[in-house]
């Protein structure tokens, strides 16, 4: 049953519309003298909150070791399938001698043309290795440039000390006789 909306009968002046038009013109005229609220973007910057979700980036710890262990949970959870990881063996350098972790990403790609900035990758990461940064200025001349690779992701992510330390637990000397 269609709903019938009763409309008020307009009186003569309202029917003319001219007063309404004049009122509208007056309103827009007044509006011309109000200050503009535009943000002059390249010169002025918006306030970025701490919980802003910008481009995801990979982080290293304070000693410059990569935290990612290439578990691919972010790749799994990523709704638009923007993340592609090529897992590999962690490099056998001195930084990893006391590591529990044998796995590290060989390649890590995030397609920023696909990313929807949902932050699931940060949320699911068991190693706290991926974070939504406050980086919001993404531009490139080619599509390929917007597929962030490992160096770019570490550049965006930077360093985050503390948090999970996958290297720590062998340092207390126990169980050494097994080696």
């Amino acid at each position: 049953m269609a709903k019938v909306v009763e409309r008020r009968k307009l009186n003569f002046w309202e029917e003319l519309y001219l007063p309404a038009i004049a009122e509208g013109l007056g309103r827009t005229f007044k509006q011309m003298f109000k200050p503009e609220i535009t943000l002059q973007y390249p010169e002025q910057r918006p306030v970025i909150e701490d919980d802003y979700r910008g481009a995801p980036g990979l982080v290293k710890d304070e000693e410059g070791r990569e935290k990612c262990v290439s578990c691919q949970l972010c790749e799994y959870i990523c709704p638009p399938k923007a993340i592609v990881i090529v897992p590999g063996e962690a490099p056998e350098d001195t930084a990893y001698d006391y590591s529990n972790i044998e796995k590290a990403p060989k390649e890590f790609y995030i397609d920023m043309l696909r990313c929807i900035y949902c932050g699931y990758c940060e949320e699911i990461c068991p190693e706290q290795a991926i974070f939504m940064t406050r980086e919001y200025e993404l531009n490139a001349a080619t599509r390929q440039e917007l597929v962030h690779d490992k160096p770019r992701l570490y550049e965006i992510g930077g360093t985050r000390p503390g948090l999970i330390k996958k290297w720590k637990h062998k340092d207390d000397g126990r169980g050494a006789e097994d080696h």
Partner: protein
Amino acid sequence: MIKLTIDGQEVEVEPGTTILEAARTLGTEVPHYCYHQDIGIDGNCRICLVEVNGNTDKLTISCKQPCGEGMDVKTESDAVVKARKGVMEFLLINHPLDCTICDQAGECPLQDYSYHYGSGDSRFVEQKRNKRKKVEFSDKVVFDGERCILCTRCTRFFEEVRDCRPIGVENMGGKSTITLGPNGPIEDPYQLNIVDICPVGALTSQDFRFKQRIWFMDFAETVCPGCAKGCNITAGAYQGKLLRFVPRRNPDVNKSWMCDDGRLSYDDYNITERTRGAKVAGADASFEEALAKIGELVGDGSGVAVLASTSDTCEELHAIRTWAGKVGVTHLWHGAETWEGDDFLKEEDATPNTAGAQRLGFTPVPTEAPSLRGLVVAGDCPVPPALLADLDFLVLQAPVAGELGEAAMVLLPGLTRVEKKGTWVNCLGHAQKVQPALEPGPGVREDWELWRDLAGEDWTTLKAVTRAMEAASGSSSDTPLVASES
């Protein structure tokens, strides 16, 4: 026969059957780590505890306890659930829980049982024990001592199935761990099976190590294309690339095993360059043109032979045979490929369907081959050079043409062994279903469709070919050509 009750259900089993196997016949899966169907019973992991005849003080390990007449078994009673929870907690005390980087994750009974039977929580606050990690048992197998739960499936596999002892348990109590024997790295050609039977991620394959998480992969239940044994396998692929073969249990053929050579042969089928689209005399042509050209070349079939690959499925071979019969080609030969066999599973015949080809009337190439006008090569197989002499024309249908492709008058694309769908008959006479593990991509038609079009038959589905083949060759239970539906 022995009658007993499991979870209120009556079941009748052969004498000597264990409770675990009896429960399995009812569809009840009792959790187990150390027990494996195809190796001897050990009974060390204690996760398979069940309550027998209401005795809650002393639970019984179902993997080793044979069924007794009138037993009343409970697999989910309070006592059992509590005991399992306890066992799970003990197993996980020293397990590193590094599932995030463990290749076993996703197909790990420790994960599954922890999820189903564990408490989901740990009361253990002490330091976990550190053991050796990343120990290379050979260039195929890596061992991680921390993940190991010491079920000894691996050592028992070598002792009981392979009759050798390359690895064993060293030390006692909390320090016990699997270790290499004094003779150095494992050399057994079936050693990768211990990776499959390891219920945790302690033993992992060097080849598959860190390649891909299994939940990203696509799996096909198929048959190993490596040799005539036809071991049942699950082929795992990721984005159109095969990453591994893993044996699938078939008690009649391969039990739970397969040879390392067959297992690692998967990479041979990741071909990058292949024949796409048809070619006539080196120039691109439509399939219709190519097939018409074949008809024209073969003519009445005199002096023409068909050399079919023994990796072709029975359905493909039947289509080829039908066509040959129609145009009057009488020489139906099959190719042959060999590699080194052994006395366990690996056969010398390195093609999966020789038995099927022979059942369909294909014969080996005679030593004294008659002089030929033309040769039709169907499928991927080596062509004896003697056959190629004095040929008027060569028709080649193969996934990769190679050098022969340049000599071929008509070149047709084909499927590799892992892309085929149909039936292979192994050397034991079992007809087994083959499922495609990869997609061939554009410009490639199913082999059986090509030969069907050539033969002018109206089979629209593979099933129609199967039925036609059955009708034409009288497939019997003794010499089956069609895999049973089970």
